[in-house]
């Protein structure tokens, strides 16, 4: 079964990720129990959390993209086109200004709340907009994101925090250690949620009338999807920063391979997202060892190439 093979490859990448780093940690020594205490500690405090963070962030961002594309019925939208990432950044900026000494977890929580608020505002605006044209959804989101982003940039500029704002928008796993990634588990919850509701999203992906004829509440499915999307992107943004292209290319590649039935695509997208992020981060860690290249940069290069390929290869599905 090809899915099993994909899982195996991802597991292999995760294993490699566990043993790539500045400190000397070796698999045989760990297994034999002869590793130095410090190596064991580095493994537990730094390597395992980082690998988990990569898997969680990759899987949930890809799922976020998939759900977004099903709900919006547009292959070329991204989870960040709902004003959510911008709201998360605004939240992070606010908490950095008002309570710079707070632990990261608290900052994350505040930021996630802002992101949810931003998404709620987005849903509110959507209600007022006739949804006949699917392109209107990402357009509204992009415009809302633009407004919130401008507000955020204005505040950041006034208080000399432009550097921080840039860093939040630049995904990077180098700062991940135990205690600094746990919010990403929420992403896993979102993945499970997406799998449970997969059939509904598949139906919703066929249009409002079709969905209603089958007795489903179209709006409710849509809202659930957007909540998943916003939660995922908020959590990833505040934990490691935004990762470009991921939510876009992974679902598209999977769709080319196995079609659009979400019950079938969710496992593929989850695994594919994790593998993609793991591979990009390993590359980013190795290119300039011992210094690191942010994953957003690696992902931007790889993602842009794949995206171009997708654009040129397939006929446009978008309106």
């Amino acid at each position, binding site marked *: 079964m090809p899915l099993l093979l994909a899982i195996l490859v991802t597991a292999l990448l995760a294993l490699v990720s566990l043993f790539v*780093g*500045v*400190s000397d940690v070796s698999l045989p020594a760990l297994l034999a129990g002869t590793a130095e205490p*410090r190596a064991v*500690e*580095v493994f537990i*405090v*730094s390597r395992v959390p980082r690998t988990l963070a990569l898997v969680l962030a990759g899987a949930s961002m890809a799922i976020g993209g998939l759900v977004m594309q099903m709900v919006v019925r547009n292959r070329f939208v991204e989870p960040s086109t709902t004003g959510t990432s911008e709201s998360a950044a605004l939240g*992070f900026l606010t908490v*950095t*200004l008002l309570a*710079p*000494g*707070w*632990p*990261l977890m608290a900052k994350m929580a505040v930021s996630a709340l802002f992101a949810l608020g931003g998404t709620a505002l987005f849903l509110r605006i959507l209600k007022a907009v006739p949804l006949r044209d699917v392109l209107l959804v990402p357009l509204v989101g992009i415009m809302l994101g633009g407004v919130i982003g401008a507000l955020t940039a204005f505040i*950041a*500029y006034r*208080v*000399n*925090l432009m*550097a*921080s704002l840039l*860093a*939040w928008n630049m995904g*990077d796993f*180098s*700062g991940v*250690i*135990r*205690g*600094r990634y746990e919010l990403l588990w929420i992403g896993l919850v979102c993945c499970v949620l997406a799998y449970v509701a997969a059939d509904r999203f598949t139906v919703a992906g066929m249009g409002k009338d079709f969905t209603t004829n089958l007795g489903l509440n179209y709006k409710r499915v849509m809202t659930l999807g957007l909540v998943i999307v916003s939660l995922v992107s908020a959590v990833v943004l505040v934990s490691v*920063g935004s990762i470009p292209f991921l939510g876009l290319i992974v679902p598209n590649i999977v769709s080319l391979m196995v079609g659009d039935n979400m019950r079938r695509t969710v496992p593929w997208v989850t695994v594919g997202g994790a593998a993609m992020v793991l591979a990009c981060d390993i590359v980013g860690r190795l290119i*300039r060892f*011992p*210094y*690191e*290249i*942010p994953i957003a940069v690696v992902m931007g290069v790889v993602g842009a190439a794949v995206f171009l390929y997708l654009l040129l290869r397939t006929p446009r599905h978008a309106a």
Partner: protein
Amino acid sequence: MSALFRTTALLATLVGALSLTPAFAQDKVISTPQGDVTIARVPEKVLVQDWAVFDDLSAMGVAVAGVPSSNAPTYLADQIPADAIQIGSLFEPDFEGIAAAEADVYFVAARSAAAFETSKDIVPTIDLSVDNTDIVAGVKANMVKLGDIFDMADHATALNDELDAKLAEVKAAAEGKGTALVLVTNAGKLGVYGPDSRVSWIYNNVGMASALADVADGDHGGDAVSFEFLLEVNPDWVFVVDRDAGTGENAGSAEALLDNELFNQTTAAKEGQIVYLDPQASYISMHGYQGVMLLLDQVLEGLNG
């Protein structure tokens, strides 16, 4: 004989008289990284596009008429004249405002160095950019240049002597204190400032050995590193530039970030040898005289415990 003598005397008098008329005779040629600039007299109306140069001018006691409109470092706040005109951000000068100001001289540096090409046709422009590889020499050279421009050479020399004295003091304090690493913290991520960075003087002038001696040390300026990296490099002293502390206070986010299981095992953390540097002096006006003096004081205080 007497006719020749009289002619010579007359000539001598003429030459003497000419050299006493300052407005026209004292054209000064100032060499800058972007070519020589001729200044006709001691400038009175001064515009500055860079906080480090403002810092220098303020240290010299020169009145400044125009300042950047953003990123004013807190340590300079009470030196900025309330009625100063704002001439655009550090990167984007407001050329119309600059032209309208009809100033005698306009200083650019580092971030605004690119403005030179445009502004040189509007107002006599001097580029005071400093090369990061030797910041102290660059700062001192700028002070000498400013002393020349504003006829305050003695004052500049005195200030430079003070800087040298302070540096010698810090250097003595740093003797035998082990290795150092300058960290920049930004949004929960770590970067390393090496011997070519904005605070390179900690390594190059104060003489603290870089903790990166064992690591291939490229041209990095804030390269991302992991906590694991810190654990392995294990510096004796850590100097922290907290880029999240945009309001100018070391507001504690860097401390919260560094308080973790891995960093706490380094010598610097165990011995409490962590010095938080003024974030604005170290990354906005890192080439300013007062900024460098302030940072030297902070390093000195840290080293002396």
